[in-house]
């Protein structure tokens, strides 16, 4: 199940028990004094394996902050963030990095591929980072490239790929280590309609196939129908 929960309250027990991503009463304030802004305001959220949650809302509403906090890239001012049973807010930075390595996959706005690596090498990178670059990882990379339709372009570098192809590779890279949680940041912002539809359907398909708890933030209202649930974020609150 995927649930928003009322501000400041935890998710219902039935949801919480199944969820691999659970944010409870998360508040994030940025800046100090007069310049301080509340990016997230008592956000509660839980996402179960195999569920695809889309979060939409205007610019500056806190969508990217939600992804940053959910992935342990930023520590909330208040509240807890549980990923695969561990509260990220209790971990030190290097522990959060290690937890992210094994449990969280990120798909970025512009794919964020490394210029010097081929498509196949982009997928192998997380395995090398995790010290698991073995035959099994290579096999899985090839399977994922096949799943996202990139086998024929596996030896191309990012500048030789289209925007849609780059996003496919970015998605496959995020899935290589079979993370429980997949966090997706504006995956279609640089794509035309057809490519955007293609990518979001691929996301939905891979979410079900790999049973990841997927959270996608997007401005693009035309792709929301691919998600299991859609939440709207305004002024740091989920509705």
């Amino acid at each position, binding site marked *: 199940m995927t649930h928003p929960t009322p501000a400041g309250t935890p998710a219902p027990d039935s949801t919480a028990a199944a969820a691999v991503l659970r944010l409870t009463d998360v508040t994030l304030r940025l800046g100090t004094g007069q310049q301080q802004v509340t990016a997230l305001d008592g956000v509660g959220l839980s996402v179960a394996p195999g569920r695809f949650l889309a979060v939409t809302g205007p610019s500056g509403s806190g969508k*990217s902050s939600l*992804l*940053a906090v959910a*992935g342990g*890239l*930023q520590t909330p001012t208040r509240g807890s963030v549980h990923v695969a049973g561990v509260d990220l807010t209790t971990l030190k930075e*290097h522990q959060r*990095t*290690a937890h*992210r*390595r*094994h449990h*969280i*996959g*990120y798909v*970025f*706005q*512009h794919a*964020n591929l*490394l*210029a*010097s*690596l081929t498509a196949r*090498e982009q997928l*192998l*990178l*997380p395995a*090398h*980072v*995790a010290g698991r*670059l073995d035959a099994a990882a290579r096999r899985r990379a090839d399977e994922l490239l096949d799943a996202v339709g990139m086998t024929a372009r596996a030896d191309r*570098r990012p500048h030789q790929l289209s925007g849609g192809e780059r996003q496919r590779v970015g998605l496959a*890279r995020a899935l290589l280590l079979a993370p429980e949680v997949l966090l997706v*940041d504006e995956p279609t912002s640089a794509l035309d309609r057809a490519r955007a539809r293609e990518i979001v359907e691929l996301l939905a398909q891979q979410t079900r196939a790999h049973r990841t708890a997927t959270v996608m933030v997007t401005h693009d209202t035309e792709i929301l129908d691919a998600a299991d649930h859609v939440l709207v974020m305004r002024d740091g609150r989920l509705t």
Partner: protein
Amino acid sequence: MFLAVRDLRFARGRFALIGAVVAMIAVLGVILSGLASGLADSGISSLRALPVTHLAFDKSASGELFSRSTVTRDTWRAWAAQPGVREAEPLGQQLVHAQLSGPGGKQLDLAVFGVRPTGFLAPAPATGRPLSADPNGILVSEEIAKDGVKVGDRLIAGQADTPLTVIGTIGHASFGHVGVVYAPLALWQKLHYGLPGALPPAATGQATAVALRLAPGAGTAAIDHRLGTRTVGKAGTYAASPGYTAESSTMTLIRGFLYAISALVVGSFFTVWTIQRRQEIALLKAIGASTGYILRDALTQVAVVLLAATAAGTAAGLALGGAMNASAPFALKTGQVTAAALLLTALGLAGAAVAVRRITGVQALTALGADR
């Protein structure tokens, strides 16, 4: 190495550029090392080869001791009788102008070392006869032989036109960039005083210094005090060779600047490189790479570039140095070349290490475009 190697391949133009700069610095490093060694050899190789542990000079002499010191027979005899002294003999040193006999004979500068012909300082000739064979005979070094002087030649030297006969040759030996000849002490005294005819009795009992072979740990301070001398270890006498100290310190300064520039250039390159990679570094952190992982990768990249460029530059420097050998005082010593290459690599790594420390400050959050 996963990223380091692939970045090197992908951005080979940029890395080739910094590699070329490091290689050129390595070439300069080798050439300067060779020149420093060559100049040192040309200045002090004769002193280095002396079979002594110390030299005792007149205590009132300072600076260029060899041209300012005079010791007497009493002094070297007294030194020979001191405890801990295994050998003590007079050594004369004098720079003189000479000319090969015959019309239009070639003019030469000679650094004349005067020694007892049968003493421990007298060198064994490589060719020809020993000093003891002829009171007017001299042994010439290869530096003099290169000027066309050969066994059997006659020369006229010094202010009194003292006749000299070349009776043999020795290996390389120079003093203050002048080729060395060995002469019997009495002949050296004639050249030193430059007086026609027989020397006054006082002049026949003088030399420049007392050459000493001391037992290990033998003290010299009390003897110096008693005999009016100043004893200097063999290495300490090098500074008394004309121009040696100034040349050495100049070369050391130039090399120091070269290595400092190298560290700065490498550091600057990798600072720019690291700044350009900010987004990639943020991505690596976002997908779970530790700072240690990224630093190791970056430093491996630096090490590969530095080692390859230094090796190439050193090889080119050796080839260039070999070609220079005939036209300049140039001597390559394996130890010095290796040390120069290692120093260049180490300082480059240090410069780059400071640069890539910026990696620690990159936030993973940047990967999300939070600061776009």
